[in-house]
């Protein structure tokens, strides 16, 4: 196993009274695709925001590339973020800029490259995601799958060491989904990246993941390589991977039983 690029230790995070993480420990290894899976609302996206320093934990630490994210100054954090790419669920493209300008944006902000060099780099990135001819389109003219591919090209613009994918497969048609799966896998290999894929699309995610972590109820309930997960007989793993309605994650939202609620109404 390669060394850990990201180390999460004893992570606690709450939103109001709602405890999202209750002492999570996790390592994300260099050069691998790590899938973070779990039911909706377990804090998968929150975890990415904590890794990117957009949120502060209540307790614990996140070390990325040897740096404690939440002890960095603003300029140090921004320096680290230049080495992190993030693909948002919505794509998060700037809607007033066309595809070309969206990808050129981080290059214009953080480099002193000439216009011709920026043009070359943008077209190369677009070619990598199969959209070099779409550089003049506005984000509103793109389909959901195309928008995510453009967002991936933008995330790759500064040649980061790692990329975080937030629900990349949600709402995609089978063709776009296949393209995204292939792109994530190929870019990770070709550019020697470290990828974190947050998703609850089991089949697609497992098809490309090297490591899998399953989060539920504020804890990492299972982790291991893809093979270990597939062969696991843990109730958590089986419920999630096999899509069982009831199990350790209850079908019913916690609270009073239906009988108690009906009686309350009568009273």
């Amino acid at each position, binding site marked *: 196993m390669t060394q850990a690029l990201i180390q999460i230790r004893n992570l606690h995070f709450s939103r109001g009274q709602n405890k999202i993480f209750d002492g999570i420990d996790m390592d994300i290894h260099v050069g691998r695709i790590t899938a973070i899976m779990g039911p909706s609302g377990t804090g998968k996206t929150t975890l990415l*925001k904590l890794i*990117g320093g*957009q949120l502060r934990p209540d307790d614990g630490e996140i070390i990325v590339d040897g740096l404690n994210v939440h002890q960095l100054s603003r300029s140090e954090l*921004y*320096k680290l*973020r*230049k080495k*992190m*790419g*993030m693909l*948002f*669920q*919505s794509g*998060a*493209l*700037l*809607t007033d800029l066309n595809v070309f300008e969206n990808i050129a*944006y*981080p290059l214009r*902000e*953080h480099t002193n490259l000439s216009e011709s060099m920026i043009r070359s780099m943008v077209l190369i990135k677009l070619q990598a995601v199969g959209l070099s001819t779409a550089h003049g389109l506005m984000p509103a003219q793109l389909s959901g799958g195309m928008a995510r591919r453009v*967002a991936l090209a*933008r995330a790759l613009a*500064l040649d980061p060491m790692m990329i975080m994918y937030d629900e990349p497969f949600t709402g995609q048609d089978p063709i776009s989904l296949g393209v995204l799966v292939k792109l994530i896998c190929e870019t990770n290999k070709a550019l020697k990246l470290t990828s974190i894929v947050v998703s609850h699309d089991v089949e697609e995610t497992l098809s490309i993941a090297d490591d899998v972590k399953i989060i539920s109820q504020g804890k990492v309930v299972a982790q291991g390589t893809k093979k270990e997960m597939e062969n696991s007989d843990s109730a958590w793993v089986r419920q999630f991977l096999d899509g069982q309605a009831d199990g350790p994650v209850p079908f019913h939202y916690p609270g009073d039983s239906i009988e108690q609620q009906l009686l309350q109404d009568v009273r």
Partner: protein
Amino acid sequence: MKGIIHILARLGRGSIFLTKILSGIPQLFLRFSLVVQQLYSVGVKTLFITMVAGLFVGMVLALQLYYTLSTFGATDTLGMLVDLSLVRELGPVVAALLFAGRAGSALTAEIGLMKATEQLSGLEMMAVDPVDRIIAPRFLAGFISMPLLAGIFSAVGILGAYSVGVDLLGVDSGAFWSQIQAKVDFYDDVFNGIIKSIVFGFIVSWIAVFEGYDCIPTSEGVSSATTRTVVNSSLAVLGMDFVLTAIMYQ
């Protein structure tokens, strides 16, 4: 009690946000194209409604004042009274109310939607501070636009009053302008009006960008924030107008 704490908390967040904006403004002079773009969408696009409103306010003012002044045989002072009303009060206040409705609401909705669609988070993850790149240019553009729009409102209003007073009601043209020249003081009247519009521009722009940035990132949240911008800006402008008038003309 909970409501007071909520208001104080928002006021605190708004003040911290304002210091962040102000600290980002010096960098904008190196990238002034960001501000120029916003001057167009915040200022130029508000020009039409400001000019039309100014024209009609000036015309109505001339009609109202003419009928009142005619009972005293003092219609020659029409120009001076219209001018004083516009540059001291109506220009800055009505232009600010229009600015809050047209540009302030648009600023809040734009920033709120950028938040809801994760564009602001996307910028942060690209190591670009959204306050420096998105908020500060919009704030500065609003701050610069407001006094200019108030000036245009007053100028067009005076022309509207001239067309009604002189061309329609027969007030002497020379008297109209000479009364303005003689009685309107640059410092006491025009300059104080400019100060008011600068203060209103600051307040409306601040409220608009803060409401957008602080909104709940849902369609309902953006809608509420936009409404709050118009309501709070209008109330703040009217309240501040009283305070400034009391200080300036005591």
